[in-house]
């Protein structure tokens, strides 16, 4: 009887251990996280517009008034510049690392002149950029990323149907390109 009790206690301790191991290790191998799903969309350095219907990787826009575009990047070699301009009632940007932790976020009220102009760079690249800031980056917001890979999400809101076209155009014309200094 005592041995059965001991077996149950050992089993429960094992269950707790297993629970902790699964919870702590799950984020590294689900294959369902946002970064993996965005990578499955294809090219880096290009904004992919999401629709209300889930794509192959399962990404969709749940909110009926939101328009969303995502761009995955790797700034290991060169910095990345995000740009977008247009007349929309609201836009916002969030930059995440490959573990989907937020690094930086902003919206149109916190931008310079209402347009989106952000440079994403590693600490070393940023030091080099700041030493001799190129003319065209005078108005840009410089964001330092601790790890070179991640993704950016740009959202716009179309409160009425008549804004849909402007919101789509804003996202379609948004660029997510390597910044080589020219």
């Amino acid at each position, binding site marked *: 009887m005592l041995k059965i009790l001991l077996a149950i206690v050992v089993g429960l301790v094992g269950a707790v251990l*297993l629970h902790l191991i699964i919870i702590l290790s799950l984020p590294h191998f689900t294959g369902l996280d946002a970064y993996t799903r965005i990578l499955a969309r294809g090219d880096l350095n290009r904004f992919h517009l999401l629709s209300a219907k889930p794509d192959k990787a399962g990404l969709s826009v749940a909110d009926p008034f939101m328009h969303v575009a995502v761009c995955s990047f790797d700034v290991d070699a060169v910095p990345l510049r995000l740009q977008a301009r247009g007349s929309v009632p609201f836009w916002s940007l969030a930059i995440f690392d490959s*573990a989907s932790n937020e690094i930086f976020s902003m919206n149109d009220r916190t931008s310079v002149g209402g347009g989106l102009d952000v440079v994403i760079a590693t600490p070393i690249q940023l030091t080099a950029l700041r030493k001799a800031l190129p003319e065209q980056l005078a108005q840009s917001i410089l964001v330092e990323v601790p790890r070179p890979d991640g993704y950016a999400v740009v959202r716009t809101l179309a409160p009425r149907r008549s804004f849909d076209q402007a919101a789509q155009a804003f996202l379609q014309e948004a660029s997510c390109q390597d910044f080589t200094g020219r």
Partner: protein
Amino acid sequence: MFRVPLLIALALSIAFGGGIVSTLYALNVTTGFGAIRLGAWEAFPNAQTAAADPYAKSHRARAGNLLYGNAEGLAFSASVDDAGGRLVSGCSYAVSGQTPHARLWTLYAGNTGGQPFAVNPALPAGLNSWTVVRETDSSFTVTVSARAQPGNWLPLPTGNVSFRLTLTLLDTPTAGSSGLIDLSMPKVSLLGCGDA
């Protein structure tokens, strides 16, 4: 003579069965710790950050949703009414009051996973701060029902399925605020069930 293998099998089955079932339960039932609860509404302002707890990180790695950044907004969801009853599409509900300070907000109904219902495209898919009709004191009342309603109407699918309301505040100080207790969210009250 099979006592020892039997005991080992018992311990192992409890360990693996209990471990796996408890993990799945924990991940399905909640998004993690650190929720703000205001009446029926709950939100997770830190779920997208590196400071999120391990449960929140596991949950978001499995769900794969694009979460709102701090400066973007904060999404509140409600799957129960203020009295604690589960929201079902066979009943009608009133969402009334004010939202916390935000530049814009959107409200829509979706399934328990948060995906919006495929309603008739001629019907409103949701409401937002620009389209909602307000009282003179700028408060609003939205009737959530499967049957057409006067005023602000948020359609539900027919039948008797569970649903979830999502209220997203955009560009809101709520996301970064620590004085969250004073915030008032709209009340979610049951109006009646069936044809009543």
